[in-house]
């Protein structure tokens, strides 16, 4: 069973619908026991990091998430929460090294970074990227992003390159919205569902 973590600030319907389209059973939950017993956990999120972390703390889920051993996928803000902290002013989960920063774009590119942009695959061997190639388009809506670093497995460029996908052990993340990224997004979710547990 895939558990979609109800952080209280996310659009959960579209994530669950994407899993339904893949024929995968999922449950929206904030129950620690359900999360601990799931064989996949998805951490969605939109909005501000501080509000999301406050919600996770209130629900007593910070340590529960950190201790998960099954594959975990953070989406958009959910991925940003995996890092140490966010420039938005929040201490995050501290699972992946680094700080999420406001996108600083050169020139006069509009913000938020909104729309379809291309992936550049850095770690083609990662199971999450099975069948995904450089140049594939995915859908973004965000103003903050993690700089490209050692755990980056794919990057995207908007004025500057940033982490599109990250992976550290069983914790993975997408800055874009796979649930709204057409066939490429479906493939990434399918890879996540079907990958071998570490």
């Amino acid at each position, binding site marked *: 069973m895939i558990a979609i973590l109800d952080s209280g600030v996310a*659009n959960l319907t579209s994530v669950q619908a994407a899993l339904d389209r893949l024929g995968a059973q999922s449950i929206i939950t904030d129950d620690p026991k359900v999360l601990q017993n799931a064989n996949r956990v998805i951490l969605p999120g939109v909005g501000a990091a501080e509000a999301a972390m406050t919600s996770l703390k209130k629900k007593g889920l910070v340590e529960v998430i950190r201790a998960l051993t099954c594959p975990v996928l953070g989406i958009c803000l959910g991925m940003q929460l995996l890092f140490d902290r966010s420039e938005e002013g929040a201490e995050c989960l501290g699972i992946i090294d680094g700080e999420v920063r406001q996108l600083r774009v050169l020139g006069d590119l509009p913000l938020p970074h909104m729309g379809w942009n291309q992936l550049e695959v850095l770690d083609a061997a990662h199971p999450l990227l099975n069948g995904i190639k450089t140049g594939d388009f995915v859908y973004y809506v965000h103003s903050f992003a993690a700089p490209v670093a050692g755990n980056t497995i794919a990057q995207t460029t908007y004025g500057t390159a940033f982490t599109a996908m990250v992976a550290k052990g069983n914790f993975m993340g997408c800055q874009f919205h796979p649930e709204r990224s057409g066939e490429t997004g479906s493939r990434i979710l399918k890879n996540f569902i079907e990958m071998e547990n570490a």
Partner: protein
Amino acid sequence: MLAKRIIPCLDVKAGVVVKGVQFRGHEVVGDILELAARYRDEGADELVFYDITASSDGRSVDRSWIKRIANLLDIPFCVAGGLRTADDVRATLAQGADKISINSPALENPALIDALSREFGKQCIVVGIDSREEDGDYYVYQYTGDDKRTVATKRRTLDWVREIVERGAGEIVLNCMNQDGVRRGYDIAQLAAVRAIAPVPLIASGGAGAIEHFTEVFQKANVDGALAASIFHKKIVAIQDIKTTLAQQGIPVRK
């Protein structure tokens, strides 16, 4: 490269897609799920659903179609029309809409933009502007959904653009009324004027009638997306043909 977006707009009334027939009400174009699937398959980058269902007796309208669309689509979509309060917006996003768009309610109560942006994040708050050129300047119009109620506001369009960005709009759809429905091309001068001062994504609306209008609006007004309705509903041009032409001109598109 960030792709330029092609965005079909569907008018929804009581759960079906309609098109306006001037002074004679609305004619049903088709089933909302079928049309949404058709545009998705043809390569639309995003869809806008403009709910024109009247709520004359103040009851909330049936929006159960939003959840069915959210389940069906694997591309983003925006819901516009009839959203007046944070509760309306919360319910719409909870049904699975990625973005919402407000227009007249923002003019009645500009602080609504601040409140929505704070609660839901600016990434999902789109502000629509109906604008018309008069005597060499651009002015905002209100209640354009109903001919009898449409009024000119005293707001200059460029002032309103600056204000809504300041208040937290995450994207602007600029509907240029001089061009609307005539299919003679987007209002390049007006869109370029707004582009020059808008630091958020800008979507062009009103006037698309041929493939070259899309090339022109991206090259000359540097908008982020182009919205159109009748040329897609009437199958005057195909989305893939637009994208092929744009790509040949060196404009980035998602294939």
